[in-house]
């Protein structure tokens, strides 16, 4: 007998993330960190430039994560997804902190 649904990993789709911060607020173990900045976008015909948030860094600390999936559930833009991969032990404590690129790569491996 083996576990049929391995508690996998959470993938980030960076392009879908709007930095709404809902996942950060809802995470019970405080394992998500987001850095962002604002940019003004000028559009032709608009009365004034729009201000948009731009994602700089999205980190999930899997050392703290309880894999409850609340972040996946609450994301209004489906920027977080479950992936089945479970093989990512780390030799260092900081190796459990997955940054934007690593989180984005989880779907492909």
């Amino acid at each position, binding site marked *: *007998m*083996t*576990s049929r649904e391995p*508690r996998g990993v959470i993938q980030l789709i960076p392009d879908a993330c709007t930095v709404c911060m809902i996942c950060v607020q809802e995470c019970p*173990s405080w394992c998500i960190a987001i850095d962002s900045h604002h940019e003004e976008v000028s559009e032709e015909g608009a009365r004034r430039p729009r201000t948009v948030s731009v994602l700089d860094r999205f980190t999930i600390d899997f*050392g703290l*994560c309880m894999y409850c999936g609340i972040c996946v559930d609450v994301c209004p833009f489906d920027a977080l997804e479950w992936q089945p991969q479970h093989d990512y*032990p*780390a030799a260092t404590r900081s190796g*459990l902190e997955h940054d934007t690129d690593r989180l984005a790569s989880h779907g492909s491996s």
Partner: protein
Amino acid sequence: MLHSLLATREFRLAADPLVEVRVLALGLACCAVEVDAAVVAGILVPADGEPDREPVREPVREPGGGFRVLVVAGTVTTPLVPAVEAALGQRPLVDAVLAFGACASTGGPYWDAPTVINGVDRIVAVQQYVPGCPPCPEALRDALLSLAGR
């Protein structure tokens, strides 16, 4: 004393006949159940049990000793520190320490609790961290093989 009840249990890793990995499992909290799940799944075999198959060549380390890994499974609270120290003091000494699960790795969801040690690496150097709350048995097998260099 509570910690005297928490002795380690010894297993062999059944995944790879080329690697002789001895697992000393120290179950401190609920992640211990997942170590048992690895036994049920056949990933770990009790150390005194019959081998399921003969090694196709000599194990990496001396037979009998093997590569000994202490698997700390569960929350390390202040009263349980002596249990960890007792496990570390066993002879022969362990070759590596594996933090199994969020609590043993970092304190997990209890990182803010005053009686919780935020990771067993505050007591002893950890060679492998396995994330998860709890991790699945397969993650334990993968981490042990990774430690043994496979």
